[in-house]
């Protein structure tokens, strides 16, 4: 088709906002989420990783129910008791085999030379296991509903059950890992939330106003990126007063982690602001005289939310690792608070490691959660912007 001269005249003016174009905008935004979801779904590894991450958060929420024992339960008789093997079939004295999940209790010998206790499985002591068994203490699901049930555990809660072995106080590593999940995973979330607030505020200000403000904030970001984080974190958390209680310390540590953590998010926010400022639909909204704040809320926020979500996901693992490292060094959280880092601290000394290598199991959830969140973040980033590589 050849265009008529009349129709060929290009319209040099920006489109005027009409109710129609607002409708388009909503479609555009909705369409974006939809598109993102389609792209994300194609990313198989990211989908699996999402399931794993959700499962880990589920564990964090229902820790009391999932852990066979209360967090602080200890039993000096079982110091460094090794992990028990779950056996499914029980053979009675007549040779009948029946399905009865159980573990074996321990016999303890004292090794004469090394003067240390050696645990052996004792075939005589059958500790039967069951689902939805009653535990030692009452707890509250979600902090509200009182319950005694545990997903699984010994039918007689006073009997020893150490799936992953015991630590130096005879505490059950399996239960403590589950409780540690709550602290480690939330410290990631809370720390990132704090960082996000800093990041959006400073990055947004930086990207919106530009000029001197931008310059100062950029320098500050560079400053924080140039300084090695661990020594600073160590210094700051060592300076926390000794007499602070667990809650105070928890929040202080998250604040310390986010002091250095906000810079990455601020850079992303600023970058998105800068590029979005130039985009057509924002320009046209600006020409219509919609106030700046209106622009931000209506047009900019939804369209870069996807990037923020991706960046946030990618910064949670960093927080988890940082907390683990600090607690491992004894400068982060401290008992009675249980985090994966706190649990790993027990494995710090070679001698302990030699006696109770199972303490290293605490590393597994760290690695799994960090890997999973990284894959989720990667998938989200690819889905948000397939061309940004």
């Amino acid at each position, binding site marked *: 088709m050849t265009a008529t001269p009349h129709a060929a005249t290009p319209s040099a003016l920006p489109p005027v906002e009409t109710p129609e174009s607002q409708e388009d905008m909503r479609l555009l935004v909705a369409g974006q989420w939809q598109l993102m979801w389609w792209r994300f779904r194609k990313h198989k590894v990211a989908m699996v990783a999402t399931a794993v991450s959700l499962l880990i958060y589920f564990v964090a929420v229902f820790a009391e129910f999932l852990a066979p024992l209360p967090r602080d339960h200890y039993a000096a008789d079982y110091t460094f008791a090794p992990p028990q093997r779950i056996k499914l079939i029980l053979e009675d004295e007549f040779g009948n085999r029946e399905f009865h999940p159980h573990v074996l209790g321990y016999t303890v010998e004292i090794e004469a030379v090394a003067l240390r206790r050696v645990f052996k499985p004792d075939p005589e002591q059958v500790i039967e296991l069951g689902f939805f068994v009653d535990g030692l203490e009452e707890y509250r699901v979600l902090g509200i509903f009182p319950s005694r049930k545990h997903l699984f555990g010994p039918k007689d809660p006073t009997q020893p059950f150490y799936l992953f072995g015991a630590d130096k106080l005879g505490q059950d590593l399996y239960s403590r890992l589950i409780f540690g999940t709550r602290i480690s995973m939330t410290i990631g979330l809370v720390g990132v939330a704090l960082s996000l607030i800093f990041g959006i505020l400073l990055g947004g200000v930086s990207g919106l106003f530009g000029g001197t403000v931008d310059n100062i904030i950029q*320098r500050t970001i560079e400053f924080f990126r*140039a*300084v090695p984080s661990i020594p600073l974190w160590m210094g700051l958390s*060592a300076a926390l007063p000794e007499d602070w209680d667990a809650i105070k310390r928890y929040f202080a540590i998250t604040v310390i982690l986010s002091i250095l953590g906000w810079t990455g998010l601020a850079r992303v926010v600023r970058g998105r602001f800068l590029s979005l400022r130039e985009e057509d639909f924002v320009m046209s909204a600006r020409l219509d005289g919609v106030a700046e704040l209106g622009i931000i809320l209506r047009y900019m926020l939804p369209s870069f939310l996807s990037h923020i979500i991706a960046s946030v996901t990618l910064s949670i693992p960093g927080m988890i690792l940082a907390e683990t490292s600090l607690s491992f060094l004894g400068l982060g959280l401290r008992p009675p608070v249980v985090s994966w880092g706190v649990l790993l601290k027990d494995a710090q000394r070679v001698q302990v490691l*030699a006696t109770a290598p199972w303490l290293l199991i605490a590393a597994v959830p*760290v690695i799994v959660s960090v890997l999973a969140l990284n894959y989720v973040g990667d998938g989200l980033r690819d889905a948000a912007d397939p061309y940004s590589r």
Partner: protein
Amino acid sequence: MIQYILHRVLLMIPTVFGISILCFGIIQLPPGDFLTFYVAELSAQGESVPEAQIAQLERQYGLGRPWYVQYFLWMKNIITKGDFGRSFTWNKPVSDLIWDRIAFTMLITLLTVVFVWIVALFIGKYAATHQYSLGDYIATFFGFIGLAVPNFLLALLLLYYSLQLFGLSPAGLFSPEYQDAPWSVGKWIDLLAHLWIPIVILGTAGTAGAIRILRANLLDELHKPYVITARAKGVPERTLIWRYPVRVALNPFISTVGWTLPDLVSGSIIVSVVLNLPTTGPLLLGALLQQDMFLAGSFILLVSVLTVIGTLISDVLLAWLDPRIRFS
């Protein structure tokens, strides 16, 4: 170029100033000052400190005066006399304690940078030129693992397995017989034989990141027209890849190494604690746990400033290697 370097050095000044303020803050945060600790410590051991010495120390560090006076005196002593204050746990000047530790930290970090560089270069090049091959997937997967496993965990695992398999601990930087021996060829060889362990452990995370970056950059460059021009000239494929796209992809890579430096230093501190290396790590941790703040603050100050200088050097190197920057 000179102008560029000058500019960068000038930009560094506020950073260093910021670091010093921060470190001073860390020193000041815990209640009480080192003198109180010192006196308390000594009197706990049944000794007493002569009044004259207390007065002298008070004057020297401006104790009891406003914080900025103390800060000023602290900085002045460092700059003019190399005096970082006193460690009350060791009862020694801080400067007597830190320098070899800092030197070992620098040695390890530097060697790790070289390690990261070389390994990432070869693996990254392989992964990019064999995109979507099995090797590429393996490299990518190990990249992720390397990022997910904190290096102190690697150190722990290594410790455990060498204990299990060989019954010996790989900790430290020297075999017992060289521990206190004077420097000799044998001691150097012994040092190198121990050094590779922390270097590999420290380098893993950095290598993983660097491989990802190099691979992505290289994938961008591999199909650029200048590569095709070179191919059309008859340059052999191997030479061509190294000489043209890799050369360009190296630039962002060098700056990457610049900003992984802070992470490497961070990592070296915690790995040193696990492996009990005679670097900054264990001493800094000890100082912090006992709130020996002058010692801790000085360590943090020095380590941070040296990191900033290292980053600066890598930026300058980058500028010098890239003719586009060198000539502008």
